[in-house]
């Protein structure tokens, strides 16, 4: 077990020299970033995202449900996130804890607020039947930066997804799929952590563990911010927030190329 205080001192010394434990620059993401789609055949769409040693799998399932009364012609979506106990010694089995729920809600916000899914095209019969899109994110191996990896897996799985066939009797045939889900936007999450006075992207588990604060910025391809979340226990200055947004926009462009 690495002593946390000593490790923090060590990383701060490295950060000062624009270096990191694994030799990266402060704002570099790990390599390789791999997105594999179609990794789970029974899902309407799926993706396994690997960033360094962090691995997250997302599966999209569709069901027919009722629309909300205030949006009778729109499909619905729900994101769940699970920090599987398999993926890290830190995680316990059982219902998702507050961190897993926070992660799911951040991913949800990015997709919902960017209008990534054209929800009007998920309407089957106004006021009665619409598609519900279930986006389930499961962490496979936790080596830091789960928010960015999860958001990336969610949009990649959505881009991979196809509608199941509705038979004439109204039954859903999950063995046959028709056209692709209508995806309009590709929201990308970039999380910046603050350790001491340094801003870092894509921390691994140990770097994340000694960080003071965290700012997630989700942006679409038009440069619109669709979601933000300040995390961690330390405060950040307004200039640091502006800097995080700048970094977020820049990094989102790079990450979007992998889709």
């Amino acid at each position, binding site marked *: 077990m690495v002593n946390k205080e000593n490790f923090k001192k060590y990383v701060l010394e490295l950060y000062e020299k624009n270096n990191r434990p694994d030799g990266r620059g402060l704002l570099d993401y790990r390599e390789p970033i791999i997105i594999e789609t179609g990794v789970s055949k029974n899902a309407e769409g799926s993706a396994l995202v690997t960033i360094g040693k962090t691995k997250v799998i997302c599966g999209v399932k569709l069901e027919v449900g009722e629309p909300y009364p205030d949006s009778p012609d729109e499909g619905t979506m729900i994101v769940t996130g699970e920090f599987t106990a398999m993926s890290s*010694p830190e995680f316990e089995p059982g219902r998702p804890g507050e961190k897993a729920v926070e992660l799911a809600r951040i991913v949800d916000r990015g997709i919902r607020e960017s209008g990534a899914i054209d929800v009007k095209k998920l309407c089957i019969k106004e006021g009665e039947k619409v598609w519900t899109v279930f986006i389930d994110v499961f962490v*496979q191996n936790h080596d830091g930066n789960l928010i960015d990896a999860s958001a990336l897996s969610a949009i990649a799985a959505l881009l991979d997804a196809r509608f199941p066939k509705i038979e004439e009797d109204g039954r859903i045939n999950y063995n046959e799929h028709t056209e692709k889900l209508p995806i309009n936007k590709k929201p990308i999450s970039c999380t910046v952590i603050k350790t001491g006075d340094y801003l870092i992207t894509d921390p691994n588990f140990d770097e994340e563990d000694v960080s003071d604060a965290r700012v997630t910025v989700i942006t679409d391809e038009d440069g619109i911010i669709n979601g933000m979340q300040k995390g961690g226990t330390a405060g950040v200055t307004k200039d640091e927030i502006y800097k995080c947004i700048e970094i977020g926009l820049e990094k989102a462009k790079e990450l979007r190329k992998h889709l």
Partner: protein
Amino acid sequence: MTKRPDNRKPDEIRPMEAEVGVIEQADGSAMFKVGDTIAMAGVYGPTNVLPRHMEDPEKAIIRSYYDLYPFSVPERKRPGPNRRSVELSMVIKNSVLPSIFLKEYPKTQIELYTNIIQANAGTRCAAISAASLALADAGIAMKDMVSSVAVGHYKDQVVVDINKEEEDIEGATDIPIAYMPRMKKITLLQLDGKLPNKKMKEVIELGIKSCEKVYEVQKNALKKKYQNMGE
């Protein structure tokens, strides 16, 4: 003889793949794939037992959690445990338990997680084969490997490793079996359906023969990791 839907011979297991060390954070891990069923297993431990009153002064305890990912099945499964997963967690634990030298690790626990990322019948068997590999990968002292496969019975014939399509045939019976190939001991036997008593011998013989094939795939996966380490 009725043809199998995917034209396999009665004693033919679907194509298998196995790999260890797939989850870097875990002390031991494995992926086991048979046909379209993919199981992942992660092992943590031996570690301190929490809560403490659960600890056994004589030997390690095993905690097992099996789950299907919601998107692994055609009709989405609600996240979280249900009666099925609670039972399967236990039978998976009991299947691998006899292979472990538990007394080597008194007052500790070994956590065993098995997750199905894609399901097409035989998920508990794939989970057991993955679990045993993950335990070996974690360096837990073991007297044997545990290899598992299900034998099926439908239309009066005994076949190995039935897939979802065969499972859904009217009157199909599923008999999951786990086996320690060196000790020659059966560690899991379940039966769901109907089977004439006179067929049981054929089922067991085919199950054992097939588990030995699974064993070869498991051994190769372990060897491969250590061969790659040498490079």
